[in-house]
């Protein structure tokens, strides 16, 4: 039997297994495909995948498998453009600015000297982020010139993407941020991610609690999702003391384990319903 939905993964975590379980409950024919075992002949009509829900954690594997499948005519959620736009904090920033969605101020510098000069002009603290990356990796707070020089110098020896210095304002906010899970045009659940550390990533030990969705939040998230051409995304917001809600990230392959746990919303089932709806 041809699959209704293919879950394309490179690691089976709680999220991927929950999608499979939700499919069984709904009598949806789910095919699990390990991207690490996938070879696609780009010159041939592909086999029937149904609609593909892209769940690869490897950024490059995710992006390239989406490009190949989409190019072969397969519907992939999220699409290639979302992978490109949401996968890069600078690209997302520019798209959010273009449509007027509040986002933290940022500067991009293309060498250590240019970055230090910008920091000395604008002042500290600032947050340096890799334009591509996740889970808080290599995100550092630059408190002064000494720390900035040390951190930026270490990046000058890394892969070129880390030599694009994306410098974001350090947003004054409560010790938390918000993760809103969007399925289509709706926030289906949102959580506060609490942490005494200035990084609130759940991967770094933050704790979750339900967050009430406001109309303002939903309107901002819909705009952000559409800016990156997403279908199912996780939008990260901060409550800036100066600007109110700001969106600092849109996640292309969002995790939702903690959101399901604390909000008791069946996000995997909603994702499948949405995937089947958009395929038709």
């Amino acid at each position: 039997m041809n699959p209704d939905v293919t879950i394309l993964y490179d690691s089976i975590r709680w999220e991927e297994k929950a999608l499979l379980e939700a499919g069984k409950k709904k009598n949806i024919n789910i095919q699990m495909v390990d991207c690490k075992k996938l070879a696609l002949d780009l010159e041939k009509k592909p086999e029937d995948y149904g609609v593909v829900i892209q769940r690869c954690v490897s950024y490059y594997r995710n992006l390239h498998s989406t490009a190949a499948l989409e190019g072969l005519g397969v519907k992939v959620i999220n699409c290639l453009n979302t992978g490109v736009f949401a996968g890069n904090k600078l690209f997302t920033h520019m798209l959010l600015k273009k449509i007027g969605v509040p986002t933290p101020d940022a500067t991009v510098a293309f060498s250590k000297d240019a970055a230090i000069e910008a920091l000395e002009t604008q002042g500290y603290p600032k947050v340096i982020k890799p334009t591509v990356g996740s889970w808080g990796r290599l995100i550092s707070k630059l408190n002064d010139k000494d720390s900035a020089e040390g951190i930026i110098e270490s990046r000058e020896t890394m892969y070129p993407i880390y030599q694009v210095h994306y410098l974001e304002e350090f947003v004054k906010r409560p010790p938390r941020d918000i993760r809103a899970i969007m399925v289509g045009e709706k926030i289906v659940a949102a959580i506060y991610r609490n942490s005494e550390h200035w990084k609130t990533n759940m991967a770094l030990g933050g704790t979750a609690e339900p967050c009430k969705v406001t109309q303002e939040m939903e309107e901002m998230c819909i705009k952000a999702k559409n800016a990156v051409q997403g279908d199912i995304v996780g939008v990260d917001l901060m409550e800036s003391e100066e600007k109110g809600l700001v969106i600092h990230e849109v996640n292309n392959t969002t995790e939702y384990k903690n959101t399901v746990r604390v909000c008791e919303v069946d996000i995997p089932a909603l994702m499948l319903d949405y995937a089947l709806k958009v395929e038709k």
Partner: protein
Amino acid sequence: MSKCEECDADISIPRDALEGEIVTCLECGASFELAKGSDGFDLKPAQTVGEDWGQ
């Protein structure tokens, strides 16, 4: 039941386990990927954070 390669604790494999699924040792926290073996699943050390991994 399998043994953790790191600390030798017992690791239970879920009944509905899937090849490629990540299981974690409750004793030491080491993560393993389930790989098909001759008799059920074998545990192989899981790559937990690749340089380009994320969401």
